[in-house]
């Protein structure tokens, strides 16, 4: 059985049909990329899977649990972590406190809990390379650092599935290489990843599968080389890869 399964997901905002009967199935430990032009419904799909939106019709299941009736915090506790396209850390809190929030609400309570939380925050900040910025406020970080902080926050909920929304976009070539490194590292740790990226080239390097959405419909689903080999598809739906 797939770890994440969605059947017939549709979402309408008034007269705008953002998703039209989307079916997806993602196996455990897969890295699946989601591509599509602006307005194709990618973020809407993530919002439904993370509980921020209720679909008009259809349902999604994660590890057997029905997601589409649950609030976001219960979905988070089931094991789905999420980052945003525009990173949204708590800007006036320190890097440490930002990560501590998620750790606090996933950690057990008890006499040794404070020490365990501290170790967990240190581990997560070391993972994303922000341990030396622990005392800085999130608002002082660069774009790349904010994205890494948000990744650490998503990981702080101890997810088994990560929904990553354009983790590499807007970054320098070096920053994108770092993100590629994170994808590899997270995959090595056994996480399942469903990732939106603007750059098809970035995703094709790390993904087992690529899905392409256009106007709320899945128009391609396959191995990266199959999807990207379709020149017409790439031109029509993905445009030229403008990132070097």
């Amino acid at each position, binding site marked *: 059985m797939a770890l994440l399964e969605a059947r017939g997901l549709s979402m309408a905002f008034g007269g705008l049909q953002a998703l039209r009967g989307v079916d997806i199935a993602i196996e455990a430990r897969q890295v699946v990329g989601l591509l599509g032009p602006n307005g194709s419904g990618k973020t809407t799909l993530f919002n439904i899977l993370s509980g921020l939106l209720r679909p008009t019709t259809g349902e999604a299941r994660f590890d057997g649990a029905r997601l589409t009736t649950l609030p976001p*915090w219960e979905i988070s506790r089931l094991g789905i972590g999420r980052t945003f396209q525009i990173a949204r850390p708590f800007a006036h809190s320190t890097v440490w406190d930002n990560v501590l929030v998620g750790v606090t609400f996933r950690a057990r309570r008890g006499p040794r809990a404070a020490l365990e939380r501290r170790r967990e925050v240190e581990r997560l900040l070391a993972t994303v390379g922000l341990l030396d910025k622990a005392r800085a406020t999130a608002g002082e970080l660069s774009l790349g650092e904010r994205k890494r902080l948000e990744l650490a926050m998503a990981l702080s909920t101890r997810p088994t599935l990560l929904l990553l929304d354009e983790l590499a976009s807007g970054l320098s070539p070096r920053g994108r290489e770092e993100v590629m490194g994170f994808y590899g590292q997270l995959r090595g740790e056994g996480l399942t990843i469903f990732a939106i990226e603007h750059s098809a080239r970035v995703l094709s390097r790390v993904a087992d599968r690529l899905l392409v959405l256009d106007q709320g419909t899945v128009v391609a689903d396959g191995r990266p080389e199959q999807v990207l080999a379709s020149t017409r598809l790439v031109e029509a739906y993905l445009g030229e890869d403008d990132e070097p």
Partner: protein
Amino acid sequence: MSPTTLAHAIVAGVLLGCFYALMALGFSMIRSVTRALNLTHGDLIILGGYLGYWLWIGSGLHPLFLVPVAAAALLPLALGWQWLFQRLREPKELSSLVLTFGLSLFLQNGMLALWPGEYRLIASEALTASVSLGGLTLNRGRLLVAGLALAAVGSLHVALGHSRWGRAVRATSVDREAAALLGINVDQATQSTFLLAFALSGGVGVLFATLHYLSPSGGAELTLLAIVLTIWSGAGHARSVLGAGILLGVVETLTLLWSGPRWRELIVALMLLGTLLARAGGLVPRRSR
């Protein structure tokens, strides 16, 4: 003007400011977590005061014993208000003004029907005596109220900064969606904030009634005060609300001392305007909170 008169005015201002802060805390907390402006805030304090007065007349108990009773009495209203606020449409600031304006009229007329006619005061002898401190003569009731205000602000500051509940409330007030994705039950955080804010209003109402006469329409001035302090301090920061309250209290008493009561409201209004022009987010830099 003698140094003693000046010192007396400043101490009286600090005591008054502590009470102002206590009165504004509930408004600030709800504003922080829901972005809504609760225009019934002052009416709820007055309602707490009337409940306290009614119980005091009936039982003759020390007013301090009635504080938790009035606090608890407002809890069902907290749940009702939260239910209504959840249904507000965007922009929440504006729609909350419309909703709570109507609720404020409802509360005022309800209190007018229940307690018509005259002004009420909990004139407990236990609180009217004077005490001498360092050469200054102070009202025991005002000292007690200031002490309670400091205790409440201190407890809230520690709870918000260092408890699991505090982290949930702070995260919810900054970014509701991001907080929910981190596993925080934002509905529960909001509900607990409403319950605490309404309990504070009910309890503060009893203290208010020991110092000031109650009238059913007296809540508007208290709501305005809470709005001013929240604008000065930024929403949801207990320590900043205390600082803003003390600043307002001292400015008020010094204005009274130097210029008489005519200038009090004008000076406060000018300070508010100055704040809005200089810093829409409040007087205190956010990073230092």
